[in-house]
């Protein structure tokens, strides 16, 4: 009984992490100018009563900068997932539903996008567009939509000859209504799982781009560029790298765990297998 209870409690931890992340992002709105203010007397200082995590190389309080970084990563992750899932799902569903030449073109385009290794396309786009948070979002959407498109297409292909779709067609229901009302609800669940993993991917990619100096630029804070600036002071002040790194890891871990949980819940095929 106690073991069951502890497992159920353990399963709540990912939700707690995501909640804390969202709260940090929200509090980031109220961080005042002191997070940007250079205080040379507090250069690389350790913790004091005002800032529990000490100060960075320009004497800015690290805790406040972490909140701003949380805001950046949260905003980027949400925007990237919304735009890339909308774009990818609509392209994938149309391609799977209508078939024919449209489908052939879309699958070729997907192949070409998949031919660029992961982060490289985002790096290339960020290089063309220049740094900045909106360009990071754009670059990550361009990389991210492919996954949703592939998934939505495959799901639509497996569903399009189901009886209820054929019945709707026989009643001359317009195609857009069939797609929205009869197909979309059935494929939302796997897309949701994909989106959860997409959040983890977007958080790590944003931080990666910012780490390379191609994403969010100082004085704006991102966990990635905090690590980038911190590595230069690794010997004197390792907490500059510790703090944003652990937060980043926890958020990615929490979101991945959430995705795992949801996927296991959805995977009806896996459950009876374990029984026999």
């Amino acid at each position, binding site marked *: 009984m106690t073991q069951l209870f502890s497992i159920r409690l353990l399963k709540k931890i990912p939700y707690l992490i995501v909640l804390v992340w969202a709260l940090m992002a929200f509090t980031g709105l109220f961080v005042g100018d002191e997070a940007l203010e250079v205080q040379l007397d507090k250069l690389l200082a350790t913790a004091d009563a005002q800032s529990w995590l000490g100060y960075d190389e320009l004497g800015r309080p690290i805790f406040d900068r972490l909140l701003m970084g949380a805001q950046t990563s949260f905003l980027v992750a949400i925007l990237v997932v919304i735009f890339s899932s909308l774009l990818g799902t609509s392209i994938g569903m149309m391609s799977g539903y209508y078939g024919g030449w449209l489908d052939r073109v879309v699958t070729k385009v997907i192949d070409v996008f998949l*031919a660029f290794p*992961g982060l490289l396309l985002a790096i290339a786009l960020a290089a063309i567009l220049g740094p900045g948070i909106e360009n990071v979002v754009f670059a990550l959407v361009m990389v991210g939509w492919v996954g949703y498109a592939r998934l939505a297409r495959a799901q639509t292909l497996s569903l399009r000859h189901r009886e209820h779709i054929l019945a709707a067609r026989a009643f001359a229901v317009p195609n857009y209504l069939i797609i929205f009302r009869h197909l979309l609800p059935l494929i939302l669940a796997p897309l949701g799982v994909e989106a959860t993993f997409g959040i983890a991917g977007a958080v790590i990619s944003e931080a990666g781009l910012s*780490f390379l100096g191609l994403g969010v630029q100082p004085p704006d804070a991102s966990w990635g560029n905090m690590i980038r600036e*911190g590595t230069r002071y690794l010997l004197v002040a390792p907490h500059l790298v510790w703090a944003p*790194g652990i937060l980043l890891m926890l958020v*990615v871990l929490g979101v991945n765990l959430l995705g795992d949980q949801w996927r296991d819940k959805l995977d009806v095929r896996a459950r009876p297998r374990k029984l026999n």
Partner: protein
Amino acid sequence: MIAFLIRLLGSVLFVSWVVGSLVFFFIHLVPGDPVAVMLGDWASPADEALLRTQLGLDAPIWQQYLSYLAGVLQGDLGQSLFYQQPVSDLVSERFPYTLQLALMALMVAVLLAFPLGYWAALYAGKWPDGVSMTVSLLGVSIPNFWLGPMLILGFAIGLSWFPVSGATQPFSWVLPAITLGTALAAILARMLRASLLEVLHEDYIRTAQAKGLSPTQVYAKHALRNALLPVVTILGLQLGTLLGGAVITEVVFDWPGLGQLLVDSIQRRDYPVVQACILIISVAYITVNGLTELVYAGLDPRIRAQT
């Protein structure tokens, strides 16, 4: 089999051509005048005109495209603006380092993933499973630009077992390879566990057990070999992530590979080099994926028959 090979080769060539064309149009996607962006605000009109002729940007676009394709086919990738030497020299100088890093990371990943995944599958649902899956989930979640500095702090500065950065000293590849290989190891271990669990339910495993084979023979010979199929596919696909991650890892460890050249060139606005790096890394990735399909077909006769 021959039809399969031809189709595979055709698709590799087609995708490489499209990627190459995209990389060509890359320079035309730069907002504004690429020459003005490269030279900055203080350039004289004469300098700008000179660079425009040097890059061939004054010719009509189809002519530029044809001469670009002809150049790439002959191994001519243009002239670096920063180093003032052929891009192909720069790239061929850096490529072996990236290849070495990727192979070493792959080795680290396989060495970590196989014991972890195998162990987890044998004791599925018990504590070793929990331990190894937690370890692998941590591996996926640790960003390599954080793991890298932490490894430097621990093993290069704290214990001084390995050099901090660069590629000149012996064993300097160890820390970068571990940094790059961890994430791949984690994914592989999870995949191997899932695949092994699936295979262990098959009838031929029960047959092997029933005819009295030792557990080692059943697991290592009958189960593992069949479970390898999906793992090989994932391995090929994940090499792309490895190459993307190599960019970050190379920057962290100051490793003189293509990734670092790419990031430096982006900051120097040395666009011919940027184009070449993206082209080379992508084509390497496409080729690896093609080879993966070949290995896959070699392992599984059903794939070959499908053509």
